[in-house]
């Protein structure tokens, strides 16, 4: 039987350091903190990884560890405690794929970082396309229905934010063009 401790550390780092960093960035909104969270996650794995019995759970374990570290470090757990169960989905506003395709990746990142804390983490994990809904629920330690609801609401919110940001960018371009023509 393959023991989890035998999972090659180097391969784990190679496979997960980038998605872990991006998840850390979406939580902390700071590159330096995201790097520290990633580093801490692998440090914890080096020390405690052998306790994990099921190799299939390694990915979820790493993301859960990073998320817990973020909560512990920031002492912001209270911000993530929901007093009300959310189970409803919302219809997202329309956003043309061709417009989305033309948006700069930095603006997409900004729209993600603009989301409320409770939406940002599940939406980030959703867009990573590496985790099932059940895995996202395990990582964030919230009910499955809440995960799906937050993703629905978070995606809708992100579209609104993207719409605002692209409008602002478009105005800047128009303004610069006008200045160029007038000057």
């Amino acid at each position, binding site marked *: 039987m393959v023991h989890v*401790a*035998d999972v090659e*550390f*180097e391969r784990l*780092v190679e496979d997960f*350091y*980038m*998605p872990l*960093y*991006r998840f850390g*960035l979406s939580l902390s909104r*700071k*590159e*330096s903190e995201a*790097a*520290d969270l*990633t*580093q*801490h996650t*692998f*440090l914890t794995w*080096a*020390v*405690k990884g*052998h306790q994990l019995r099921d190799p299939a759970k390694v990915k979820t374990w790493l993301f859960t560890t990073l998320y817990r570290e973020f909560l512990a470090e920031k002492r912001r757990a209270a911000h993530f405690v929901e007093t009300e169960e959310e189970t*409803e*989905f*919302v*219809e*997202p506003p*329309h*956003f*043309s*794929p061709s417009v*989305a*395709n033309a*948006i700069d*990746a930095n603006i*997409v*990142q900004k729209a*993600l970082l603009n989301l409320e804390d409770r939406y940002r983490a599940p939406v*980030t994990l959703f*867009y*990573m*396309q590496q985790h*099932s*809904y*059940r895995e996202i629920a395990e990582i964030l330690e919230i009910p*499955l229905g809440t995960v*799906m609801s937050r*993703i*629905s609401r978070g*995606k*809708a919110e*992100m*579209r609104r934010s993207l719409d605002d940001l692209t409008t602002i960018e478009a105005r800047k371009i128009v303004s610069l063009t006008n200045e160029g023509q007038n000057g």
Partner: protein
Amino acid sequence: MDKSEIRAVLSVYRPGDPETEDPRLQQAKAAAAADPELAQWWAEHQEFDRIISSKLQSGEVPAGLRSRLSAWEKRTVQRSNWNRGFLLAAASIIALAVLFGSWRGPFQPAPSLAEYRDELVSFVKLDPPLELRSSEIVRLTEFLQKNGAPSQLDIPRGLRRLDPAGCRTLRFRGQDVALICFKREDGELVHLFAVKRGALPRLGQKRETPEFAAQGDWMTAAWGGGDYAYLVAGKGDRASLEKYFGTS
């Protein structure tokens, strides 16, 4: 379900995810299959998600992060030869070390100047994201102080003549590092890092004059001053940095 509800339900549908095979989602999927308008909406929704996913996954990851983690990889290979009881005891020590901010990595000697230089230079080879953009050095040092990074800096006279672009904080093996970027005359940036001397004990207590070292097409200069170890890095040859120290 009306069309708005169907769109709401479809917005969380993920093909292949077992959790989205429940009756409500299947009903919404069937409705979309029977209604060209809904089918079009859903196709566009999935395309939008695919684009956003791709853009988010193209986000830059600091170049130095992989090399920082590599340092651990080399050491953790030895782990399988250690018994688990010892590891548990080590874990307690490490946890305390992390808590008290003195962590330098598992069984890891103090980092060398070369490791420090390689990691930080790799971080700034692409213009680094700055946490504060300002051309006022006072504002930058205030920001660094507020964020727990070295801030009482003795900046070489030649660098002080340049306009700062901004600053940020970094972490290196558990230590706070201050980074101030200056605008060079040719439009490129030159970067000044400062960390507590204790982070680089091998730098030597007496090295007050800069030690120059090339890294690819970049040049670096490292020295100690007061409580801090300094590193300046910029694209170019030795002469391109020496002028900031008044040695050429």
